[in-house]
């Protein structure tokens, strides 16, 4: 690993991706992960430290056609308070609301939460159930190249993603949910503030006449990455949300996850919590 030689604060996306070409760059957004990680020596700086705060194309929350686009630099507070998000994406509001503390919500960005790729990253589970896509930018030759990747394929391990060192996350895109769409998020920790999730659950789908379709279920903090729960989804898809369906889905959820024991909880406890809370959330959805 090379020594830190340069600090750079680009003011355009082109400048930023050009700087990333060599790949030897540490990206700084809000700094709420990078500061403690670098000070504790858990990460080493690359040759350039690039502060992305001054790139205009990376902030703001806007409606673009049938998608809500959240710039990578949007802070957790901005997201939680934005009328578009509040109207259409309740699961994301819920996740932001239970995130750390006011000070950290004011500084931490969604791009940082995605790129830090913690299995307990609180925005990741709602982004999974809302079918979000991650916007990436790079400069393979001399031109800016942008593309999107479904967030369901983005994470490859704890702290690991498909993003290359030459790529920048510029935002996330979320399809505007159709009428009748429901989404919920639940985070379990031991105290209300500044707690890392012991488990988290996201549920979404279209609810019509008591039947849930296009079901999305995702879990956080039960595996090296946040993940979609496909067996639980199939147990729900197209079925009437009655007591039997809900119990079958909760059992599928418990069987589907394979969590670890750690300081926050045992694997057994996590499995039980997944069962009980999936059940409770589905009961709540059934009453919607």
């Amino acid at each position, binding site marked *: 690993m090379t020594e830190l030689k340069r600090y750079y604060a680009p003011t355009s996306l082109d400048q930023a991706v050009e700087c990333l070409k060599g790949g030897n760059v540490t990206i700084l957004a809000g700094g709420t992960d990078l500061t403690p990680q670098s000070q504790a020596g858990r990460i080493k700086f690359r040759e350039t430290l690039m*502060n992305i705060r001054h790139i205009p194309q990376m902030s703001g929350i806007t409606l673009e056609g049938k998608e809500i686009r959240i710039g990578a630099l949007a802070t957790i507070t901005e997201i939680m308070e934005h009328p578009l998000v509040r109207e259409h994406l309740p699961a994301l509001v819920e996740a932001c609301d239970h995130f750390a503390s006011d000070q950290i919500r004011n500084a931490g960005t969604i791009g940082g939460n995605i790129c830090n790729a913690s299995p307990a990253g609180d925005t990741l589970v709602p982004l999974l159930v809302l079918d979000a896509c991650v916007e990436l930018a790079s400069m393979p030759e001399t031109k800016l190249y942008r593309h999107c990747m479904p967030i369901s394929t983005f994470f490859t391990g704890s702290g690991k993603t498909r993003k290359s060192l030459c790529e920048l996350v510029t935002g996330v895109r979320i399809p505007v949910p159709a009428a009748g769409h429901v989404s919920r998020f639940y985070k379990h920790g031991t105290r209300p503030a500044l707690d890392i999730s012991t488990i988290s659950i996201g549920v979404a789908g279209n609810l019509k006449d008591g039947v849930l379709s296009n079901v999305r279920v995702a879990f956080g903090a039960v595996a090296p990455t946040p993940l979609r729960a496909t067996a639980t989804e199939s147990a729900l898809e197209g079925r009437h949300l009655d007591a039997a369906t809900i119990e079958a889905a909760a059992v599928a959820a418990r069987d589907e996850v394979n969590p670890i024991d750690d300081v926050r909880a045992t694997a057994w406890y996590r499995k039980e919590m997944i069962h009980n809370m999936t059940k409770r959330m589905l009961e709540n959805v059934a009453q919607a």
Partner: protein
Amino acid sequence: MSLKHEIEFTLNGVKRKLAVDVTMNALDMLREVVGLTGTKYGCGEGECGACTIQVDGVSLNSCLMFAVDCAGRNVTTVEGLTDQPRGEALRESFVEHGAVQCGFCTPGMMMQADHLLAKHEHPDAACVKRGLEGNLCRCTGYKKIVDAVVACGGRDSVTPAQAGVQK
């Protein structure tokens, strides 16, 4: 040799130009480079709120911020807070309510409370508790701090004695 970078920013209303170590956090810059020691180091990892400052009108933990990221921005610390009417009212309310014991958490509490009052003019106790979630106090048990902030929000209508019995 550590890499330095020159930044310009506004600190408590005054323009500053400083050369800072690129890996330094804003808390160390304030305390060690500028010499303003009102902002406290409690944990250095975002858990205690003793280092709370305001940057461009929002509160954040200065221990989680890179000093270089202050460039071009408007930074307020507790030293600049009481120049403003709301800050002065908060200071008085903290004193009236006995919300200060050892005082170590107080600068961070005041900076966070000021940000809360900027967003919610008349917060109730639940709103204040929620807003101060990221600030730890080892002495007071929080009640007097919450009372002080609630009373400050209701300055014209609520006396300290009334605020004390609010739920």
